[in-house]
């Protein structure tokens, strides 16, 4: 059974149809890249999966309707990393990472157990933030801040990670750092990732599967090589982006 299944997903804002009857499914251990031009509805699909927007159709987790699940049950299965984190207050790195354990002990009287502490420590170690644990998040660089939220997700330990362009404001070096951590995580734990990206070379370098969307409608979905073809891309982007994509592919290696 697929781990995630989206059936006839439609999202409307007023009269505007942002996502139009999109269906796809995803097996465990895959990295699905949702690609398409700006305004195609990529992020909206991601938002619908995490119940951040009203939709019609169904989002199923191993056959169960996510709409019927409690927020904590969803959080144990799906973690989300997004781009913009406008900070207000000077929480420490560790406080932010610790919140990742919320869904395991949401009650007032549920104490933190050893597993919570272990997970937080492991997440801080894995992301190289152990030294910065008591530092205020207001003083972090963009890369460090993004790693802090990635550490929060490692502490949350979800089965599927949803990335909504979390790295495109970072320098190439930091992008590779964050994406590399995620690739290691998939390989060691067999988790699943869904990414919203606009950078086609990034999609090709890290993805196993791709979903190409244009003006809210699904163009094609499948293994990445079958989706990222010259014909498909030309139809959507209305120009030859294939050579350009391949020429940039080298930057993700090494």
């Amino acid at each position, binding site marked *: 059974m697929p781990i995630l299944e989206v059936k006839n997903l439609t999202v409307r804002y007023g009269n505007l149809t942002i996502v139009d009857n999109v269906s796809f499914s995803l097996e465990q251990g895959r990295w699905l890249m949702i690609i398409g031009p700006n305004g195609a509805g990529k992020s909206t699909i991601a938002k619908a999966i995490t119940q951040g927007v009203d939709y019609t159709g169904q989002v199923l987790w191993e056959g169960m309707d996510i709409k019927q699940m409690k927020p904590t049950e969803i959080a144990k299965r799906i973690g989300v990393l997004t781009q913009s984190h406008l900070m207000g*207050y000077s929480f420490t790195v560790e406080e932010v990472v610790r919140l990742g354990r*919320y869904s395991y002990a949401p009650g007032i009287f549920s104490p933190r157990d050893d597993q919570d502490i272990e997970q937080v420590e492991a997440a801080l170690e894995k992301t190289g933030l152990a030294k910065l644990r008591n530092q205020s998040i207001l003083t972090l660089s963009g890369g460090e801040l993004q790693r802090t939220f990635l550490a929060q997700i490692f502490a949350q330990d979800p089965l599927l990670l949803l990335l909504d362009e979390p790295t495109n404001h970072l320098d190439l070096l930091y992008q590779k750092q964050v994406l590399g951590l995620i690739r290691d995580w998939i390989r060691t734990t067999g988790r699943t990732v869904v990414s919203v990206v606009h950078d086609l070379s990034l999609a090709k370098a890290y993805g196993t599967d791709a979903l190409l969307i244009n003006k809210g409608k699904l163009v094609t979905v499948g293994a990445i090589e079958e989706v990222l073809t010259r014909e498909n891309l030309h139809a959507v982007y209305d120009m030859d982006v294939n050579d350009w994509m391949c020429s940039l592919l080298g930057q993700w290696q090494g």
Partner: protein
Amino acid sequence: MARSQESFRLRDFLFFGIATVAVFALCVCVGSVSIPLKDTARAIWNSIWGLPVPEGISNPIILSVRLPRVICVALVGASLSICGGAMQGLLKNPLADGSTLGVSSGASLGAVIAIAFNITIPSFPFAGTMVMAIIFAFISLLLILSLAYRLDYSLSTNTIILIGVIYSMFVSATMSLVITFAYDKLRHITFWTMGSLQGSSYQNALVLLGALIIFGGVILSRARELNAFAIGEDNARHIGVNVKGVKLTILITVSALIGVCVSIGGVIAFVGLVTPHMVRMIVGPNHKRLLPASVFAGAIFLMLADLLARILFNPLELPIGVVTSFIGSFVFVIIFYRSRQVS
């Protein structure tokens, strides 16, 4: 590898507790007639245990005037402050406080109507204002929330702030209208809208204590969720917080607690806004520490403000809201200036 402690420790409780008790003692002793601490303590001690009070101590001043008033002031300060802290976290907006939603202006409209049209409850001549304030607070909350739901089902932060502004404006217009028809009561009304805890009773204190324990307790129990909101509402949803449920819980409890405070002490500005800021500088933004510390700090802040209101132009007494607004605006400028320098 020192792991930082998240919650409020015994040491913090002692620190804030002792400071609160010290300020409390000061405020009971000092006033238009200052009474030595020893005599004050003896008067209170003896009357608790039913012992006769020695001659020469002005027992009535302490027991029936000052003590209930200072207790009420402390409880109102604590309540306003914890509400402010919670709202600033929930809306991720350092300019929010318990009155952001507009319920406190609604409550004060109720009180003003009661004063203007002499609405009283038979055999409880002074309860009219209080009951009307609570009724209006409740109606306001219902109105605001149903309006917010109609406009924006997801109850987004902007909607809440905007509706609060609109509602407060509507209420202030209505209030001006009421005052036009009751010009003879203007002095009374003005004094009330600026806030005062003059003439508070032990019954008032009991109501405030009950409200603080119940509603304050609910707010404290949501400290972790408030942390998540203070980092970001989307992040809160992603880690599994029931965003809408928590939002509704906090909005309702804050409004209820503010409603009770306004019904007893009038609108006291700036306490809920400034004290959480000062506390955040000492204990950090984590609500597990911030909220309990705000309870103590709010009590201390308002007790001192009330003391100034009583003694500054003795025998003339100032509305407490005037003092808090003066202090608050200065403190706020300093906080703002300092935070600018840091960043």
